[in-house]
């Protein structure tokens, strides 16, 4: 299933309930992503589990240049660099999201139908509110948009669809980031190392929980 321009615009009008700017219409009229219908083959039922896999390997990536810029800006709005770890886009999460929405499987195809219109909406919203590309917004401007869509349960009706997009995008960004070496370190995963014995929780942990 590819998302054609008509569908994109329809979704945009319905969800944003704002009149899109000319720039947004221009953006939507450009190929946001290559057609995904050609991506039919997955990695099969017997993939090589010993080789190194990278986005773009099992199936081609499809996001266009502009859409990748929006994706990167959203990734880093959700997971910016801080004192502990770098930003999501700096460790390959854009490639990962592109891999995800370009995959041939039902779950990923369904997510594509949320992510691509959501990227279009984000761009249109940036143009409508600030007459700039989303990636070119300053931090307060990005937050002004994000604050309207970051909580799907409480989003205003005109932002309901965009909020569902943001929730999905945040989950993908988080999954993409926290599985990387820096992400695993940031979140506090210290396993996946061979041990001679398993000691269980240290005493300090048990005391904190009231078990010692």
């Amino acid at each position, binding site marked *: 299933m590819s998302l054609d321009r008509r569908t994109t615009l329809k979704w945009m009008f319905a969800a944003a309930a704002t009149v899109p700017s000319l720039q947004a219409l221009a953006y939507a009229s450009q190929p946001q992503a290559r057609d995904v219908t050609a991506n039919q083959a*997955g990695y099969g039922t017997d993939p090589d589990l*010993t080789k190194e896999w990278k986005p773009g390997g099992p199936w081609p990536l499809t996001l266009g240049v502009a859409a990748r810029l929006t994706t990167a800006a959203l990734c880093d709005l959700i997971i*910016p660099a801080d004192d502990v770890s770098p930003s999501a886009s700096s460790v390959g999460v854009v490639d990962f999201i592109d891999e995800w929405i370009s995959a041939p499987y039902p779950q990923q195809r369904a997510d594509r139908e949320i992510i691509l219109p959501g990227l279009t909406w984000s761009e249109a919203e940036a143009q409508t509110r600030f007459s700039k590309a989303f990636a070119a917004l300053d931090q307060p401007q990005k937050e002004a948009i994000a604050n309207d869509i970051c909580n799907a349960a409480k989003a205003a009706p005109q932002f309901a669809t965009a909020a569902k997009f943001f929730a999905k995008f945040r*989950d993908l960004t988080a999954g*993409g980031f926290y599985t990387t070496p820096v992400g695993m370190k940031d979140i*506090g995963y210290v396993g996946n190392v061979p041990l001679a014995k398993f000691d269980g929780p240290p005493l300090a942990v048990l005391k904190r929980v009231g078990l010692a």
Partner: protein
Amino acid sequence: MSFISAADADKNTYDVIVVGSGAAGGQTAYTLTMDGVRVLMLEAGRNYTPATETPMLQTNAEAPLRGSGTPEKPFGFWDATIDGGWQVPGEPYTSASDDPARQFVWWRSRMLGGRTNHWGRISLRNGPYDFKPHTRDGLGFDWPMNYEDLAPYYDKVEMLIGVYGANDGLENTPNSSPGVLLPPPKPRVSDLLIQQRARKLNIPAIAGHRAVLTKPLDHKRLPQLLHPGNAKAQQILAADMQKRAACFFATPCGRGCSVRANYQSTTVHLPPALDTDNLDIVTDAMVRAINKRPDGKAEGVTYIDRKTGAEHRVKARIVVLAASALESVRILLNSDVANGSGKVGKYIMDTVGANFSGQVPLLENLPLHNEDGVDGLHLYTPWWLYKQQLAGKLGFARGYHFEFGGGRLMPGMGTAAGLEWLNGGTYGRKFKEDSRRYYGSFVGFAGRGEMIPNDDCYAELDPKVKDKFGIPVLRFHWKWSQHELGQAAHMQKTAAEIIDAMGGRYSMQPQSGEKAIKQGGIIIHEVGGAIMGDNPAKSVTNSFGQCWDMKNLFITDGATLCSNADKNPTLTIMALAWRASEHMLGLMNRKEL
């Protein structure tokens, strides 16, 4: 003797043909070949070499889609399963009903060792009640044996494959003999908190039992106990046990294990069996049917070589079906044998499954420490309400256990996903702080319960549909009874009570049984379809898996189970296979077969 081609197998003669190479096929071939019997094993899938094919220590970022499950790899990219899942390309099955609640889904894998390569390794014994369920509550069927008949074989299997656990002596939760079990792993902090709070609700939490080597097997003591008076078998097993490493407390078991620290048929049963020189294995061998001799006994089987499409016929004194319960049923129905009772395909069962999870503030922001452990089931909750249930106070007749766990496990796509219900939906630096705070603070409970066999759950041949080999496929009928639905609701309600007792919270309230219960086949504990019994008119085999109507045809997989206790069936299947194989040895030695 070793891995051979179909053409080579045509030239040889064998005592026994074993169809399937998983838990049942592996155990059957092991027991027979260690005692000098010449066995031909036929496996429908490809050969598989855990030592070189297992992804050890790979992270999810090294997999497509961060390792998420897809229709081609339902349990995730790194899962050991090859050419398998609830759908296998070119090998369909059908449902008699369009209603999803009345549909059964059938997991298969096509690889040497079958599902043992990826299974959860949970190894629980059936207890005394589980062999006499009908006597106890009037439902289902009694087994044609007692716990005491199978107990020695539970000991043997546990010693051979290596099972950790403890002897807690709880009701209908048997101890192993002294010296059999390996030490259990230390509990995680979430396990200990569950144990502390569940105790206030009079719910037990004890050491889990899983087929994982928490220390090396005792290669000096165990071979003598397993093969008394058989010096060659002892020698082979002692040598092989020394090649199995203990667990190094990393890498989820579902990927399989290249150092052979957990049980899979390919790393535990088949290597010593091959070392006896009594075992030949043909892979890519899809069995179509059992062939009948003029005297009514089994002559052998016809199979299709997947690589060439050619049909081959092989003969032996005994044929053993160990193809997985429903594949064995399919072979029986397609062969039109051993079905004088009309019971082939009847009484198929899965395990009742319902899950529930919550978040526990006490577990937030704990000091970092490695929680990988042995991957699963450090502790678990065996069924604890036997007396209340027997007194009719629960509204459902059979029990369940809880598999539970938590902790900071290897991050995947679920990590830091869906936190809105806890933090109101954040982004930026706050989201990063929230992710650290909540990671490892969730606990999950998987209720796994006993389904009672019923007349609405059965398999038959589809009158029209055939697979890519031209073999007729199974059509399933399915319906849960109120016992299963009541149990599923009880699972979620009880898990919520435990989470409450931990000071935790959950995003969804416990559901009705209809909503809580997993679809039939999802838990992948399908058994029955050729049940054992002591009456040839009402069962397909005797307690040794020997078919009433074809004395040299045996079934050693889960098809013969006439009840499906909440205890995961694999250990019981292996114990039954060992017992059945000893029976075959006796019959062959006495020239009765």
